[in-house]
């Protein structure tokens, strides 16, 4: 294929740039609640994010990558002109990367996911043809953007209510925290493992049955639970900690849980958001490597998943940790007990979406989850302006991503053909 190596090189550079941007900005949103609650330090957050973002991208990132790669555009229409798909995907990456740069410069709450989906739909509908877009699939994706924050909100509301019922509103909250927190830890590890087992591990060469999935997730949950019980058991009441705030000791027990949910959140984020960067790369690589075959049946190569994970970690190390530090300072109202409810709800929602191959916005899902805790009257003050700006960003981001990618599409087309 003519220019094959150039396309490949461009795709990798643009993809890395996107992944870097996600690591620099997006990860901070995912980790901020954990740092803000005081359960983990910034160093720990960076470490957790690096390990679990990578693991999430590698182990559970395949489905969403597949959606971005070939779920939105109808590749069959392009079998005679495979380079159009390459131009499109490159244009989409470039458009999304630039839009995100602009947005983060102005502090707009835009989502990487929304941008890349808008960009892909844009070039496909205008550059190739209206019928080239799987509108049904796009409809499902857009629906999931509304459903995911709502779902996360409902889950976090009930999680927090259960914490109230079993722990905070009892005669001995400290002892009850020690008793029940391990179960929440089990639940977190079990959920994440189960969804990953169900959807993610085929590409690592692990074929499992449903019963095996449940069994292994159960065992994984138990292992995590017992490991963390070592920590919860050691926590002793410090009477002086409760002087100003009676739940200070209880919150220390929740701190252990928060560490686990922070890992889950990083994992979930990696499983969903890394696809935004590497889905288009995978599409380009697929076409170039098969010598122009568009409707490739092959799996996403593992090295691309690793590439995405590495890009995120690089962005996190170079820039993201500063953002995490800033966010952590701003979110001090979130105690570990509510931080965990919000984070776990968001992580669960995101991982389920990842398993179903739906690209959703981790940040917006987390916003929904935090609002859920707020509805249970658990947070001192929430700024509802953010919700309005998020709605606005939805309205602006899709056309912006689309228009830019259309422009880049025709530019690339003009240069290379």
């Amino acid at each position, binding site marked *: 294929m003519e220019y094959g190596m150039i396309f490949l090189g461009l795709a990798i550079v643009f993809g890395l740039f996107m992944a870097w941007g996600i690591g620099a900005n997006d990860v901070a949103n995912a980790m901020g609640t954990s740092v803000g609650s005081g359960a983990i330090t910034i160093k720990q957050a960076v470490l957790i994010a690096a390990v679990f973002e990578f693991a999430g991208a590698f182990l559970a990132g395949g489905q969403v990558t597949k959606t971005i790669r070939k779920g939105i555009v109808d590749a069959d229409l392009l079998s005679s002109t495979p380079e159009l798909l390459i131009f499109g995907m490159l244009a989409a990456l470039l458009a999304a990367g630039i839009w995100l740069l602009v947005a983060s410069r102005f502090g707009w709450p835009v989502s990487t996911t929304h941008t890349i989906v808008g960009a892909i739909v844009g070039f496909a509908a205008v550059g190739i043809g209206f019928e080239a877009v799987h509108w049904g699939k796009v409809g499902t994706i857009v629906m999931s953007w509304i459903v995911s924050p709502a779902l996360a909100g409902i889950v976090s509301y009930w999680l927090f209510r259960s914490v109230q019922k079993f722990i905070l509103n009892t005669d001995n909250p400290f002892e009850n925290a020690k008793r029940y927190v391990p179960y929440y830890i089990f639940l977190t590890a079990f959920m994440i493992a189960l969804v990953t087992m169900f959807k993610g591990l085929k590409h690592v060469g692990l074929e499992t049955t449903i019963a095996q999935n449940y069994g292994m997730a159960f065992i994984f949950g138990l292992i995590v639970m017992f490991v963390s019980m070592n920590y919860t058991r050691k926590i002793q009441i410090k009477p002086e900690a409760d002087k100003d705030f009676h739940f200070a000791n209880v919150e220390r027990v929740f701190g252990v849980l928060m560490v686990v949910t922070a890992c889950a959140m990083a994992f979930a984020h990696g499983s969903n958001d890394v696809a935004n960067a590497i889905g288009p790369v995978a599409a380009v690589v697929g076409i170039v490597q098969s010598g122009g075959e568009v409707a490739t049946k092959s799996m996403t190569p593992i090295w691309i998943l690793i590439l995405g994970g590495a890009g995120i970690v690089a962005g996190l190390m170079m820039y993201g940790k500063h953002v995490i530090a800033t966010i952590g300072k701003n979110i001090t109202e979130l105690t570990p007990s509510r931080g965990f409810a919000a984070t776990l709800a968001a992580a669960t929602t995101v991982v389920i979406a990842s398993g179903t191959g739906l690209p959703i916005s981790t940040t917006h899902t987390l916003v929904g989850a935090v609002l859920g805790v707020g509805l249970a*009257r658990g947070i001192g003050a929430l700024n509802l302006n953010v919700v309005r700006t998020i709605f606005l960003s939805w309205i602006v981001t899709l056309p912006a991503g689309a228009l830019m990618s259309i422009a880049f599409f025709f530019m690339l087309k003009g240069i290379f053909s």
Partner: protein
Amino acid sequence: MARTTISSLFGSSPVAPLQSHMASVQECIVELVPFFKAVLKEDWKKAKAQQKKIAKLEGEADKLKKKLRLHLPKSLFMPISRRDLLEVLTMQDKIANKSKDIAGLIIGRKMTFPPEVSEKLLDFVKRCIDASKQAQKAINELDELVETGFSGREVTLVQDMIKTLDEIESDTDKIQVKVRAALFKQEKDLPPVDVMFMYRVIDGIGDLADLSQRVGSRLELLLAR
């Protein structure tokens, strides 16, 4: 790059500022005890210094009040209603204002109380300060209330505190009757204008307990939502 979506979602909680305002009010009102001791001893130098201190502390509480008010935009989503919160704040602030008024009035007129009244008067002041202290105790539970999402045991705890506050307030009413009765016995021997103002001071002190009780009842409204 200071604000991201998640960090801008969190507004600054009004709970801690409300509590520090109440703490500042309490600091102001406790100074009434040394003030009254000095006045009853007719140590005007000391009394004047105390009065200045009270005025200064009242000013500090005022500053906190203004700051909190400015930080409560309408878009804030809080577990407590904005209106009720602002009313609690107003009530708290009135306690400090009243303390300052009382001290100012006494200093301005160099009021001397008859010795038959003085001991009861000091008890009265102390009991009224107990009331505001109890109100502060209840206000200090607000962060625990947010922690439990305004439900369960914590609500019962605060309701009990407010009940105690009501009891203290009715106690102060009884003491007020006694102080008035003691003054009534002496009033024919005293200059009538002075006596008028003494009654006014007694009313003012009683108001301190009243206001404290109202802080409690506003807090109860916050719980009831």
